[in-house]
């Protein structure tokens, strides 16, 4: 079906980003915005904006029926869900299927298959993709048997969790029974699903993920990997591609694993398969799959030249997968810094408010995806992502240099941001060397705190 009008069921930078590609393709856009976002940048860019409800996401962006009604009411052919909100709720994909509105993303069944972490793990095993030693445990006895077999330290993970939520680390086997009970209770409260599973805890791990595009008929291409190991409490802060220091062979194996996993699902649209790279064992394990476009997709776009949103729309519109694997070339290195409205001096506490002035960097090899302009408001109801600064250069050293300059050019007034903090990380020799593990940023913060305390004592 030809897609002529798309309802964008999201806000912020991703809404603006999707609208831009739609307009480049000559597709009309209607933004479904909450009351708090009626004067946002995406609302200014879209051909039309409809107000779907009050500011609070539960009353607007998370209402499946309202989003679908809005799409039908404005006669949109398709819905682009962006990331977060309803993007990975099978309910929206399913009602779209029922009402004949194209959902720009995977099928409801595919979202379900990867949303259940235990099922996704089983799918990975069936596809011959390595998973961390572990498995489902129904009671404490089973947990003890499996725990002894894997050996501590262990991770208890909630089946309904993901993205770092619903995990518990256990260092000693004798602590396992109590931790199991607590994890199950917490999972029940948080996800409405008490099921948990056990996995080996990887002491030094890197977060490496592979971007794929699937046509929904079993053909999949990958667009290379991204390293997202610089994280604070499972929130990614800096992402880059290629992942530094991996051998060509290792890289090829991890790409192949992602393709195998998604081919087996006949996955449709853009998706990301996340892996944990075990630094000490030189292996990798399947972590989870994100069945949507991701925040950090621009680094992949920078090195491949593929507009991932345009491909999502093409696949959704029945044009199929327009890329062959051999035609995808990755050139140079790209790095992304997420600029958040948060205060590093106050434990990264969110800092909503009105942006008095915003000057974003520009120049060769610099891309800024943002919805923040001078005078824009950052409402307290949503996440604190203000902008993504993406740089692209011939190699990592040049990309780092370009990012340093871009950060130095950035000026935001009126709200606290992490811009200066990014500059600190980029000046750190360990990060500069490349290939840090997910424990890097907590260690960096610890070191920084110690230095600040010493200098405060004078």
């Amino acid at each position: 079906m030809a897609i002529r009008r798309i309802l964008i069921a999201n806000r912020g930078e991703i809404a603006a980003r999707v609208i831009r590609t739609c307009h480049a393709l000559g597709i009309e856009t209607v933004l479904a915005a909450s009351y708090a976002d009626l004067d946002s940048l995406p609302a200014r860019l879209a051909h039309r904006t409809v107000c779907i409800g009050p500011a609070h996401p539960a009353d607007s962006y998370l209402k499946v029926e309202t989003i679908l009604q809005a799409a039908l009411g404005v006669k949109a052919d398709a819905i682009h869900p962006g990331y977060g909100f309803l993007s990975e709720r099978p309910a929206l994909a399913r009602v779209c299927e029922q009402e004949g509105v194209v959902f720009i993303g995977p099928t409801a069944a595919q979202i379900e298959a990867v949303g259940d972490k235990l099922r996704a793990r089983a799918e990975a095993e069936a596809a011959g993709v390595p998973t961390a030693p572990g498995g489902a445990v129904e009671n404490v006895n089973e947990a003890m048997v499996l725990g002894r077999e894997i050996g501590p330290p262990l991770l208890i993970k909630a089946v309904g969790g993901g993205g770092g939520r619903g995990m518990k680390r256990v260092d000693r086997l004798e602590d396992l029974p109590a931790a199991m009970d607590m994890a199950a209770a917490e999972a029940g409260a948080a996800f409405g699903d008490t099921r948990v599973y056990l996995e080996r805890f990887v002491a030094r791990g890197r977060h490496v993920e592979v971007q794929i595009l699937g046509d929904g008929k079993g053909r999949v291409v990958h667009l290379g990997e991204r390293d997202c190991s610089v994280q604070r409490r499972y929130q990614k802060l800096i992402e880059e591609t290629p992942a530094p220091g991996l051998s060509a062979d290792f890289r090829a194996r991890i790409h192949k694993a992602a393709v195998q996993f998604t081919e087996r699902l006949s996955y449709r649209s853009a998706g990301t398969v996340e892996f944990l790279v075990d630094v000490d064992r030189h292996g990798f394990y399947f972590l989870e799959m994100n069945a949507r476009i991701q925040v950090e997709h621009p680094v992949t776009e920078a090195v491949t030249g593929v507009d991932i949103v345009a491909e999502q729309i093409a696949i959704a519109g029945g044009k199929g997968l327009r890329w062959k694997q051999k035609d995808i070339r990755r050139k140079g290195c790209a790095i992304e810094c997420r600029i958040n409205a948060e205060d590093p001096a106050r434990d990264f506490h969110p800092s909503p408010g009105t942006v008095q002035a915003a000057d974003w960097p520009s120049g060769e090899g610099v891309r800024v995806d943002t919805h923040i302009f001078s005078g824009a408001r950052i409402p307290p109801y949503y996440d604190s992502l203000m902008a993504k600064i993406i740089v692209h250069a011939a190699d990592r050293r040049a990309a780092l240099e370009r990012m340093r300059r871009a950060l130095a050019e950035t000026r935001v007034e009126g709200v606290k941001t992490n811009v200066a903090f990014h500059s600190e990380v980029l000046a750190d020799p360990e990060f500069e060397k490349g290939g840090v593990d997910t424990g890097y940023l907590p260690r960096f913060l610890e070191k920084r705190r110690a230095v600040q305390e010493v200098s405060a004592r004078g």
Partner: protein
Amino acid sequence: MSLTAKDVAEIMRLLESSSFDSLSLEMNGVKLHLQRGSAAPARTSAVPATAPQSESEAPPNAVNSAVKKTKPASEPGLADVASSLLGTFYRAPKPGEPPFVEVGANVEENTVIGIIEVMKLMNSVRAGVKGVVAEILAENGELVEYGEILMRVRPGA
């Protein structure tokens, strides 16, 4: 300790000088919610918000439709009846039946003036104000947005 009028005035001053638009405070069983003069986005109605606020679910009456430029009220002092949902607006209980209200009809706060359908779920819309229907803006069978003005009522006893 409880909040005195002086405290509230001080808090209002703090909000005024801050970069925030609203403040909610809860202490010792007292709830205080402050909002700047116009918390609505720039695209607000040209009509002064003089109307009494309908009690509960209706959004602030200064909100305008995000797209449709609502025409100004034909006379001053009219109360807006705004939509609290995005959905399809129906003026009558069933197709072919007479509308719930016409211009000139007397309404009470609880009078049903229309229905908003959201994916086959029918939601009654109440006037929220006592008076006489002065204008009907929303079209039967059309999409209405959250905050869109459906009707205007001349408040009265």
